[in-house]
């Protein structure tokens, strides 16, 4: 089956880790992930600025490694990201900000990408809250 996975909570929420372990199990089970979509505080998972204490699980780093390893389509909602200071090079330039937090393979885009992924997938699974 084809899964679209959405995450609405930041990397320090247990639901971020749960979404990642779920996504890993989806691929391990022979299924496909057509898109990861990060919305609301979930946009922080794409931030390259997060520094996790060495003896704790670094979810932001694990998400990046997961996306890179499997060459997944990983979209961060641009409107949600701007409000939360999670900018890529282009947006940082556009708004004259120094802080570039998002680099490829993450991509900033609109909510249409969430709908498109949900339409094309067999299942949409959303993670958030705690």
């Amino acid at each position, binding site marked *: 089956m084809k899964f679209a996975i959405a995450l609405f909570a930041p990397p320090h929420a247990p639901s971020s880790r749960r979404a990642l372990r779920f996504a890993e199990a989806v691929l391990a089970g022979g299924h496909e992930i057509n898109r990861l979509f990060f919305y609301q505080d979930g946009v922080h998972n794409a931030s390259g600025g997060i520094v996790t204490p060495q003896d704790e699980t670094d979810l932001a780093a694990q998400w990046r490694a997961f996306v890179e390893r499997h060459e997944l389509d990983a979209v961060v909602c641009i409107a949600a990201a701007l409000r939360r200071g999670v900018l890529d090079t282009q947006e940082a330039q556009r708004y004259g900000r120094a802080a570039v937090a998002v680099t490829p393979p993450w991509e900033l885009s609109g909510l*249409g990408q969430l709908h498109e992924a949900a339409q094309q997938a067999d299942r*949409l699974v959303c993670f958030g809250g705690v």
Partner: protein
Amino acid sequence: MAKSMLIVSRHSPWSGLGAREALDIALAGGAFELPIGLLFLDDGVFQLLPGQRPAAVEQKDLAANLQALPLFGVEDLYVCRQSLRLRGLDGQPLALPATALEGPELADLFDRYDLVITL
């Protein structure tokens, strides 16, 4: 054929971005001409109250965006009657024509849609 999506909005209008970010999903879906339903549940029902003045807390008027729903083709609006009742709002006029549902009608609503997102 496009899949239908039910969006369940549980946040009050002036408690942060929850209500607005749920509405944005509905509007984006409408813009893509997808069949979208919107259910106001729990504190989400406060979004439907008339006479609000968001300017008092320096917020943009969410009501304007809600009124835009039909223009985006989002006309299937529902509200949980039990949520209204618990808040002393059952029978009060609402700012939008939302169908009040309760009990098994809510389960039927969930049943009808292909997709559901709760925010």
